[in-house]
Every structure is written in structure tokens, then in C-alpha cells.
């Protein structure tokens, strides 16, 4: 098989992994560098950021996960890269500025350790023989030995172990060869190592931390299950990112739900909720009740505000930063702007636009110098309807946050 066909096959097999970030690492070397906030180089037709050469080392797989295109029982074209092919492709693409670096994953060939050894060999060649100083994301194979995880972390900027399914019941049903332990053990090992290394800062050791991915909609787990798990991973495993990937049905399999289209809106609401957890100081139980799903009609912050109307309106000229962040229509950037600007002068209704606040949305939740500009006959149903009518062209409260979010969705940050 020539390199053209190989690349096509092994890129096609890798594309369902959502993560693509190239951020969190600062590297300088004679050939290549890593940019702390990451750089997107392109966007594919599905609107996802492209910043890394995302490939599998091989799609030969010993396992048979129900949802996966590469599973053993599928009759598909199989291929395997040599270490030199991987290194040369990365370098040739990198010096044309097509990419920030390499994202290397793999199906399980023979067994997890054997696979990891091949992957390590390729990345080692890239780093040591080609002196590559760009970004490397290394996908850890569940069940592999800690010694190999350690080796991968020394070569990579970021590592990830994909959880994919949020509980062991689904795992048993859909990925019979994997178990919870095989996934969590390398993840825990990595998080301990990252913590340890932060303390004594001896060498570069996965400086961009670790991430994971959860598939949404391949089983019947609820959003609250997913968000609680994500929250746990952020708090206790210090993950940098959790990616949510709407289930795409690529295999005919009776264990899988019959869905024609991936649940993109649900995935989107999960990302929004994830942001509230990480940047807006929300707690999981404020966003979602036990055993339930997010309201698809509203973004989770607006949904929260509608449930807590008794806390509103708040005074724009007095409310503290945390309170401002909870006002629908005010994002991270505009909340900071408000704090700055009102030190300078009292803010008026006309100033909302200049500050980048979507007044149409915020107006129900704010007073300006004591005056309320929202609905006179304050009632929840009416506000709900008006907010539903108000079609957001964007997904977020301010444009800058939206751009950051969108590239962060699958890319930077």
C-alpha cells in the first residue's frame, strides 16, 4: 500500500476522536515550537478545528468495541505505518505550517503493550532523529503498562486516555475487552506523575496535561451522569479537558441505539455546561438534577437563571463578578469589562452595547441604576417565551467567548 492510501485509511480511522487542542505547552527548539494558547490551522467541513496530524499508527484491532469503525469484526481496509513514515509525514506537514504537530493514536495490535511500544518508537524517532520540537498528543492505550505510560509522557506534550463510556455497565456491553480499571489505572498514574512533576519541575513531562473523551448517546446514561463524571475528573484527576463526542452510528449492531443523526445539540449543551463548571464557578447540582438531562431549549445558564428568578434582577453597577457571570447575556469577557468600566463611570442602558452585552437577553435579569428595563408584569412564562423567541445567532453570550469556545470545542484551550 502506498503512503497516500495509508494516510487516507489511518486518518479516516482516527477522525472520530474529538480532541484536537494544541495548547498548554510552551516549547522552543531549533526546529519547531509549541504555542501556549494553541493554534488552529484549518477547519474541516464539519466545523472542527484542525491543528494536528491526527492518525492511527494502525487500525488492525484485536478488540471488538461495538461503536468503533476499526473493530475486529468489521471488514475494512487495514494498514500500519512505519515509524519513519509517521516522522516524515509530520515533519513535511509541519514545515509547510499545515499543522502544530502530531496526534498519534492506535487500534490495539496484538496487545496494549506491543501497540504502545510501536507508538513510542515512532514518536521517539520524530523527537530524537528529526529533532521535532512541535506539539505531540499521545493517546494512551487502555491496559498498557505504567512504564510505557511514563515513556510516552516524556515524549509528549499532552496525553489522553479515552473513557468513552461513562459507566462499567455500558463498557461491559459495548467494549467487552476493556474494563474500567484498564482505563483508570493509566489515567491515575498520569495524574500522579503530572502532579509530582509540577512540584520538582525537572523535565518536560506531558506539560500540557491530560484529557479524555466521552461518547454521548451510545448508551442510556444521562447528562447528569456524564457531567458528574467530568466534574470528578477535573477535580480529582486534574484533567485539562473532557471532550464530548456525539455518537455517530457507523456500525450495524443491535447493541447500539438506532439514531440517524448524531445528537449534536445535546453535545453542544454539554460543552456549555462544562464551561460553566470550569470558568463560571457553577456546581454540577446547580446545573442539573439527579438522573436527568439538560434542557435542550436553553443554554444551561439561561435555564438556571429561569429556575432562580428570585435571585434577579441584580444591579449592574453593584453586583460582584461572580454574580455578573450568572446573568444570561453576560459572558466572561463582558463581566470583566463591566467591572473595569464602572470604576470609571456609572453604566447606563446605552452602554450595554458598547460593552458587548446582549441587552435583549440580559435585560430581564438586570437593573441599571435601580431601573428595570425588562418586562413590567414580571412572570416566568412570558420571560421564557421571549427568550425562546430571541434567536441567538451565536452560542455564547459574547463573541470573543464564542470564538474561544468554538475553537475549544474541538481545538484550542
Amino acid at each position, binding site marked *: 500500500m502506498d*503512503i*497516500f492510501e495509508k*494516510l*487516507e485509511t489511518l*486518518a*479516516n480511522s*482516527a*477522525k*472520530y476522536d474529538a480532541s484536537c487542542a494544541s495548547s498548554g505547552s510552551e516549547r*522552543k527548539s*531549533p*526546529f*519547531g*515550537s509549541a*504555542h501556549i494558547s494553541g*493554534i*488552529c*490551522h*484549518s*477547519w*474541516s*467541513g*464539519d*466545523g*472542527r*478545528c*484542525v*491543528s494536528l*496530524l*491526527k492518525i492511527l499508527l494502525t487500525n488492525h484491532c484485536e478488540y471488538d468495541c461495538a461503536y468503533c469503525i476499526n473493530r475486529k469484526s468489521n471488514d475494512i481496509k487495514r494498514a500500519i505505518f512505519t515509524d519513519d513514515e509517521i516522522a516524515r*509525514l509530520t515533519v*513535511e*506537514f509541519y*514545515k*509547510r*505550517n*499545515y499543522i502544530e504537530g502530531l496526534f498519534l493514536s492506535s487500534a490495539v495490535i496484538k496487545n496494549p503493550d506491543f501497540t504502545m511500544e510501536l507508538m513510542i518508537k515512532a514518536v521517539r524517532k520524530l523527537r530524537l532523529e528529526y529533532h521535532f520540537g512541535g506539539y505531540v498528543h499521545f493517546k494512551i492505550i487502555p491496559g498498557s503498562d505504567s512504564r510505557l505510560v511514563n515513556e510516552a509522557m516524556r515524549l509528549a506534550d499532552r496525553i489522553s486516555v479515552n473513557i468513552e463510556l461513562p459507566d462499567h455497565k455500558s463498557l461491559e456491553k459495548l467494549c467487552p475487552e476493556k474494563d474500567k480499571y484498564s482505563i483508570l489505572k493509566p489515567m491515575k498514574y498520569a495524574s500522579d506523575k503530572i502532579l509530582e512533576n509540577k512540584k520538582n519541575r525537572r523535565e518536560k513531562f506531558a506539560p500540557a496535561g491530560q484529557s479524555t473523551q466521552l461518547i454521548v448517546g451510545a448508551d442510556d446514561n444521562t447528562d447528569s451522569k456524564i457531567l458528574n463524571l467530568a466534574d470528578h475528573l477535573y477535580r480529582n484527576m486534574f484533567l485539562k479537558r473532557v471532550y464530548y463526542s*456525539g455518537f*455517530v452510528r457507523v456500525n450495524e449492531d443491535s447493541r447500539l441505539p438506532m439514531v440517524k*443523526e*448524531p445528537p*449534536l445539540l445535546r453535545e453542544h449543551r454539554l460543552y456549555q455546561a462544562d464551561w460553566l463548571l470550569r470558568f463560571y464557578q457553577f456546581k454540577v447540582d446547580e446545573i442539573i438534577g439527579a438522573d436527568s438531562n439538560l434542557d435542550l431549549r436553553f443554554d444551561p445558564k439561561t435555564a438556571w437563571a429561569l429556575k432562580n428568578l428570585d435571585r434577579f434582577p441584580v444591579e449592574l453597577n453593584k453586583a460582584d463578578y461572580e454574580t455578573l457571570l450568572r446573568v444570561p447575556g453576560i459572558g466572561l469577557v463582558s463581566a470583566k*469589562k463591566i467591572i*473595569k*468600566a464602572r*470604576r*470609571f*463611570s456609572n*453604566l*447606563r442602558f446605552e*452602554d450595554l452595547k*458598547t*460593552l458587548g452585552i446582549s441587552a435583549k437577553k440580559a435585560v430581564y435579569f438586570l437593573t441599571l441604576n435601580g431601573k428595570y428595563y425588562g418586562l413590567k408584569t414580571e412572570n416566568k412564562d412570558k420571560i421564557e417565551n421571549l427568550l425562546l423567541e430571541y434567536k441567538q445567532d451565536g452560542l455564547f453570550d459574547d463573541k*470573543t467567548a464564542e470564538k474561544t469556545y*468554538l*475553537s475549544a470545542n474541538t481545538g484550542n484551550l
Partner: protein
Amino acid sequence: MKKIIYDGSYFGYLNALEKALKENFGEISSKEEEELFAECFNLETDAKKAGAFANEIRKLSAEAFKKTQLLYLSETPCFENTALGYLKNAYKYGPAAENNLADKGVSRADKLCKKVLYESHRFKGFIRFSELEGGIMFAKIAPEHNILPLLKSHFRTRFGRLNFVIYDEKRNRAIINRPGHCEIMEISDVKLRFSENEKRTRELWKNFFKTIEIKERKKPKLQKSFVPLKYRRNITEFE
């Protein structure tokens, strides 16, 4: 209304700003037009004075100096007046002026500067090099703003040991890097002969790019908002 006409150069721009601030001119322009209502003053560029004024702004605040430069690089219509409105505030309030975001002048300057920085950030990703015979890496761009000065250090850090050229075809200027030496120069008449390897690598990349799209998730509008059509001419995978 009193108006200053200057020669369009960076020094001239600084001279014009200084004069406008200190002698209360309302507008600055580099275009000489028949003005019916304005009283025009043609300004002679003075590099020494410009340097002194640059220092004065720097003392005012580092941010003010950075913004004054970025506004110049923006090259958008009437950027001089945006700079003037902003600097009036900076002179009045010092570094605190940055907080006066409800002020239209400060906010306009802030937004325009962000636009310039945003474009330069995007081009760190959008620039595509081709390998020429002899191994020189060559890229062509046509950005809205004059961002070469903002791109120089990033690409120098990344590809310092390569010979590379980033050519702004709108402005006929280029970053030219040889190991150990990097500068921005005027160039014209660019003729290119690609290396043998080049065509093949491009095909590989284009096919990779096509392959990774998930058909079930197609969102062409979103893609367009990230990679505007105006930039695509110079981006290999969209050619």
C-alpha cells in the same frame, strides 16, 4: 473643523497625532482631497520629533504605545482618527483610560486593536509554505491588516533554522529569514519554482483534509466563519 494631512508614513502618523493633540485638530488624514468645510494643514514629517513623541506615549502607558502602533498597522479607513480619540482619553486619564470602556473612542480603539491581533493570530495558523527548489520555504498572504511585523517573531522562533519567506502580496513586503538573520523587506517580481517533493506533499495534505471531515456532522456555515473566503486563495487545502 481643522484637519491635518500627512504623508502616510509611521513617523508622519506620530507627528500628526502629536500636533492634533496639542493644537486641537479634529481630524487626521493621509489623503489630500478637496475639502470644502475643513481647514487643512499639510504636515512635514520629522523623524526626530516622532521618536520623542513615541517616548512620551510610552511614558503615559505601555498599553497606549502598543495600541498606537496596532492602530497604524490596522490600515483601516480613518484609523488615525480612532487613534486620536483614544489618545485624547489616554492623555486625560493615563493608564486608567483603558478602563473607560463605555467611552466610544476607547472602545472603538480597543475593538480595532483586537481585530488586528486576531487576524495575526489566525495567520499563525493560515500561512502555508511551499517548498521551492533549493529548499526555501515560501508563503504568500494577503491579510486585511499589515500584520507582518506581528508575525515575525513567531515564525522566527518556530522555523529559525530554515530559509523562509512570508510574502504579503498586497503590500509587496516580506519577512525574509536565513538562519541567524530575519528581516522585513520590500520585494517585488516574485517568480517561483517548486521542489520536486512539493506537489506530492500537497496532494497528501489535501486528501488528509478531505478525509477527516465527518459527513454526518457537516456544517459549512461554521467552517466559513472560521476560514473566511477572502483568505482561502492562499490556503493549500482550499485552493
